[in-house]
């Protein structure tokens, strides 16, 4: 894993990587939870952190630690689904529009721009309030995916447009490459930094959206996520009553998640940037 080693040289990446690993471990731990988090009142309520309950218990009578692990799992899952599917759409639209140009480009871009100008939050609030109970992690992820591709598709399109003008496109065509080969072999390495940076940003945004919707009470509140944890803590007046462990946990975890996602995004896109990549090429070899 030469790539990982090189990435780890960057302090930002190392920190983010460690934090993400911890969060992922916690998410995996959730499968071993001794409690079923959809049942309330399994443990005494409102107990502060102790040896038995590491992060205390909440007003619903649940163990905060295990609630947190499930919350992390659900939030991460949703974010990954949203980011993955929105990338697929963005790449397909961006590459096609940029490469084909002409009418195809115009059609795609008008659809694209319609999505950009959609007022996202009101529509999500509307959807949230209508679909409340039928929303789960996966469906919320997919809905966010549909809203999250437009901006990045444009970025990919302009990158593709400029790549088309470069001389090596002609060389590739003269070498007999067909269009799909051209896109995957020649252009994709340039497009990947945008894709990875925007994927991570998209995850960031998705978690943020989810938290917003949940705090407003517009998502399925029976499913533990970072957002819904916060919602319950707020509606049970955890701050006022001094049950700081209940509100602090999701907030701290969210902050850690956002910070590490941001640092990952920055360090990975710096690494993948064609300019720094070119500096690395050949520097590991002996200069004659």
């Amino acid at each position, binding site marked *: 894993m030469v790539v990982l080693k090189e990435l780890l040289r960057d302090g930002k990446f190392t920190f983010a990587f460690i934090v993400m690993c911890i969060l992922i471990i916690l998410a995996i731990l959730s499968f071993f939870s001794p409690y079923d988090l959809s049942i309330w009142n399994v443990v005494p309520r409102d107990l502060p952190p102790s040896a038995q309950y590491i992060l205390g218990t909440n007003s619903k009578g649940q163990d905060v630690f295990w609630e947190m692990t499930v919350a992390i799992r659900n939030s991460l899952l949703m974010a990954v689904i949203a980011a993955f599917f929105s990338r697929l759409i963005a790449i397909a639209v961006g590459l096609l529009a940029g490469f084909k140009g002409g009418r195809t480009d115009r059609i795609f871009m008008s659809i694209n721009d319609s999505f950009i100008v959609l007022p996202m939050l009101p529509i999500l609030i509307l959807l949230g309030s209508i679909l409340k109970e039928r929303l789960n992690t996966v469906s919320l992820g997919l809905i966010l995916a549909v809203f999250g591709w437009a901006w990045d598709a444009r970025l990919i399109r302009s990158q593709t447009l400029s790549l088309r003008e*470069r*001389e*090596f496109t*002609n*060389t*590739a065509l*003269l*070498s*007999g*490459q067909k269009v799909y080969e051209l896109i995957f*072999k*020649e252009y994709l*390495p*340039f497009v990947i930094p945008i894709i990875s940076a925007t994927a991570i940003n998209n995850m960031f945004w998705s978690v943020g959206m989810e938290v917003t919707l949940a705090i407003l009470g517009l998502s399925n509140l029976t499913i533990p996520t970072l957002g819904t944890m916060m919602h319950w803590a707020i509606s049970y007046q955890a701050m006022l009553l001094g049950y700081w462990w209940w509100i602090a946990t999701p907030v701290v975890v969210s902050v850690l998640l956002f910070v590490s996602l941001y640092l990952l995004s920055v360090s990975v896109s710096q690494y993948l940037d*064609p300019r720094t*990549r*070119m500096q690395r*090429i*050949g520097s590991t*070899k002996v200069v004659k």
Partner: protein
Amino acid sequence: MFPVFGGDRRMNGKLIEVNGLSKVFRVGSLFSRIRLTAVDNVSFDINEAEIYTLAGESGSGKTTVSKIILGLLEPSEGKILYKGKDTTAMKSEKEKKEFRKDVQAIFQNPFETFNPLRMVENYLYETQRNFIGAGEKEGSERIEQALNAVGLTLDDVKDKYPGEFSGGQLQRISIARALVTQPSLLIADEPVSMVDASLRMAIVNLFKELKEKYGLSVLYITHDLATAYYVSDKIAIMFRGNIVEKGNVEKVLEEPKHPYTRMLKESIAQPDPRSKWNTRVDLHLTEREEYLLKGCKFAGRCPHAMDACRKENVPDFEVDGTTVKCLLYR
């Protein structure tokens, strides 16, 4: 050793015939579109095993002509006959592929020719695979031969990225890639203008060698008349879309007949302190005006311009084996 290229010898030795080629671009915004005739009624022939130069300043239309020949642009008018077949009428993928195999090209900027993120050998193998059908497993013999023909070996090139080579080396690898299909015609668009003066001759000599050893024809596009004189057999001088003079390279450049060719020749900075410029040149304010002139486009600057030059389209005249587009020879 490569066999002599081509193989398909018909048509009285003429490899490619360009007849009455024209290309009109529409420039400008939605409301004021100007027609720019980038290529105006251009005709010339290239024989087998011949190096033909298409010379002119930037904006003369020479690159547009090469793009049309390669099929990267559609002509507005005219025909191109390659080995007797009309290239503009080629419809089937098979025909187009045969053409691409036989007519290859290299470009001006060696540093942009290859994707900086891919190893150069990939292009060599891909060309082989796509046109010859032989993948990497089938052997690298043909590629080794192509590289040897340009003075390199597969070892020199293996596992390396474009950033690890100099401009001259990259240009050579680019030529080797074009040679993998054993083409009959190589179109070279300003192949040495971005290569250092001290390394240019190696590349230009290569064209000569390939012509002599393998019967390759080269369409050499350049604004550098000195290398054109050195390497080519015939030359056509372009000015604002027209060919103003064409013929044998020694004749055209040693005894230029068209006033523009004369001015070009005089303006060359000869690397000889004893033959410095002794006349003065008058530069024009803008370029676009000249494209839109009626009649002879050089009339604005020509010391011999007559009234007729600005009114009629000037035909070609045969003078002493050279074709000149100038009313002085009527």
